[in-house]
């Protein structure tokens, strides 16, 4: 078994009477292709928000490479390699894709505090941006304001921005939601082509994609870990089928719900 990169121990988040994350302990191994599934309201996005520091847990702890990062500020977690995409696009609407990526790449290189040399003056920035723009088919719109871009393009930029952060652990929160059928596979091809030591935690509703992409799966129900295991075991687990995948006629509905 390879090394554990990201781990949560007894993670709990309480909003008043609601407990969206209830005693969750998961382990993400180095180079994992791990999926997090669960019905709506199971607490998947809350868990991502806890992992990235957007929310602070009520109790429990989060460990990265054996170090406690439970109270670490969000931007410092990114610098340590925990990078996410958002379920709902979060972009810099007044900047262009090129500027957004150049800023992100500069931040990775530790240049984002520089206030004298122009953005992109470092020789390493342009090639990195060029590669991402080409990979995500954004070259033709790279100088348009993000606010004016079509939804699909903004979605691609969202993921390109995350990859520009050079993640070691990448958290993908429903990366292909709203992406046209044809481009979905492409996104997964790019994510699949990430270096083998990058761990990916995928939150997704589309079961075909989950079973194609992931090697291991965690099922969340009502904020708690319901089942865990490799893809085959989960797909065949009758309890998982019952609560999540649904049985017989309701299968399709549940998967999209």
């Amino acid at each position, binding site marked *: 078994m390879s090394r554990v990169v990201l781990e949560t121990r007894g993670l709990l988040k309480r909003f008043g009477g609601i407990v969206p994350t209830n005693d969750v302990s998961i382990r993400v191994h180095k180079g994992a292709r791990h999926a997090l599934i669960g019905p709506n309201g199971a607490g998947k996005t809350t868990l991502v928000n806890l992992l990235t520091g957007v929310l602070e847990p009520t109790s429990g702890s989060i460990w990265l490479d054996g170090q406690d990062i439970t109270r670490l500020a969000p931007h410092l977690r990114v610098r340590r390699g925990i990078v996410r995409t958002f379920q709902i696009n*979060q*972009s810099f609407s007044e900047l262009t894709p090129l500027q957004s990526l150049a800023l992100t790449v500069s931040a990775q290189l530790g240049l984002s505090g520089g206030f004298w040399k122009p953005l992109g003056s470092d020789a390493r920035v342009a090639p990195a941006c060029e590669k991402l723009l080409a990979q995500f088919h954004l070259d033709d719109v790279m100088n348009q304001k993000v606010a004016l871009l079509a939804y699909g393009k903004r979605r691609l930029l969202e993921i390109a921005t995350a990859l520009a952060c050079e993640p070691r652990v990448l958290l993908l929160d429903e990366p292909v939601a709203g992406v046209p059928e044809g481009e979905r596979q492409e996104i997964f091809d790019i994510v699949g082509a990430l270096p083998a030591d990058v761990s990916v935690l995928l939150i997704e509703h589309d079961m075909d994609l989950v079973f194609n992409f992931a090697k291991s799966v965690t099922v969340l129900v009502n904020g708690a870990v319901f089942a865990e295991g490799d893809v085959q075991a989960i797909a065949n687990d009758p309890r998982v089928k019952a609560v999540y995948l649904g049985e017989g006629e309701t299968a399709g509905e549940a998967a999209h719900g």
Partner: protein
Amino acid sequence: MLAALLLSWWLLPTHALLLNEIAILALFAVSLDLILGYAGIVSLGHAAFFGIGSYAAAIFAKLVMPDPWVGMAVAITSAALLGAACSVLILRGSDLTRLMVTLGVASILYELANKLDTLTGGADGLQGVVMGPLLTPLGALEFDIAGRTAYAYTLAVLVVCLLIARRLVHSPFGYSLQALRDNRLRAQSIGLSVNMRLVAVYTIAAAMAGAAGGLLAQTSGFSSLDVFDFHRSAEVMLVLVIGGTGYLYGGIFGAVVFKLMHDLISAWTPQYWNFWMGLFLVVLVLVGRDKFVRPWTWFGVAKP
């Protein structure tokens, strides 16, 4: 832009005092644009930094030494320190909170300047600030009554600040300000420290506002409570409404238009200039700046 400013020096030697006022207001507006247009921090108390710069320069010239450059450095430093201290107040909260907090800070300083009358002269203002000669590469220049030296001095400070601001907004730091203005959550999640940047830009903007205040005290030989007054914070906001935010030159265009209109209208109808100014602003905002400056589009039929 810069050429036009330099040209004005030769074209209007008799209006140096007005030009000086315009340049000071322009610098003040550019400093507000840095935080409003780029970082998205609304402020109704930017006069706090203008005022502290003004009093610092005046008091320094009166009590310590009359050299304008050293005085300018003192004005900038005091405003920057105040800006850094106040920046913790604008880190949290929404636009409305920020409006109130900044307004409050300026009011507090106004009252402080009023009460500390042994130092500031209180409600009478600090009079009789006499500046020493301006040391330049061309030799020492005395501040003259027509204000030509004053205008040249103000223009030099404005140009330097503008060049610094321009480098700043085109740097990664400048873009990161726009990024956190557009989307704080996203800015964090690409590894940017939002708070550090807000503190930095607020301090820089405060320093520039302090420079503008310092210029006013040094070139007018006078500093009064008026520099902390609410109308100053509001006026500089109006200048940006006229000139536009987020491209740095808006403050300059706005200051030119605002001061010239003020000057012309109040010469024509001294009692009612506020009416015409108000009417102009209402029309400008309703029509929109883009359309307003293109009169030929006013009466065209809208294309379907």
